[in-house]
């Protein structure tokens, strides 16, 4: 391999190493941060609120049905 090609290969190799460092840091830091980001927490909260709403709605419907049954002759 002549000098210029060797230099280009080494330059590309150095930049690939830099890209690998970037990827490793992103993965490591994201793993450390975990699924507790604001967006994740908001999504969890929304899902919990939706579950609570659905349960309350079911309870109300059950209550209404019970009242209907007692009112009916």
């Amino acid at each position, binding site marked *: 391999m002549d000098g210029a090609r060797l230099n280009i290969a080494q330059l590309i190799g150095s*930049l690939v190493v830099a890209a690998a460092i970037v990827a490793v840091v992103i993965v490591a*830091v994201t793993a450390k941060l975990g699924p507790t980001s604001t967006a994740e927490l908001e999504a969890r909260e929304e899902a919990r609120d939706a579950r609570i709403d659905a349960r309350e709605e079911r309870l109300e419907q059950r209550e209404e049905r019970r009242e209907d049954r007692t009112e009916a002759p």
Partner: protein
Amino acid sequence: MEDLIDSLTRGNPTEVKVVLASVVTALAVYQLVLIAVGYGKLRPPFLGARPASLAHRASGDAIVAITVVVAVMCLSYYGFEEGDKALHMVAGTALLVALALKVAVVRRLHGLSRYLPMIGITVFALLVLTWVSSAGQFLADR
């Protein structure tokens, strides 16, 4: 601007800033290795001085771009806060000044080239200090 940052980071500006700042700090350590090869202080058989210097310049450009993005996010979202963030604020401001000086010396003020190693080490030290006083603390508290 705050809304733009919020929507770009999907409500996680701090987390995104921590990731970007950590990437920059890791790249800065790699920069030290590259420039040590570039100046002939390290002589690995698989990397010559010229490609190491070129790679140092290329990843340095990336570092400057990411640092500016982080700084803009930081200033527009959090602003200048007093109190326990004073060290971070001072280190971050000094880092931006040192980075601007380094870019100016590399691109225009060639007469000051002999100071580049000193400016580079200053940039590295300020970068580490800025990271430790914010992202490092944030990660340590998790």
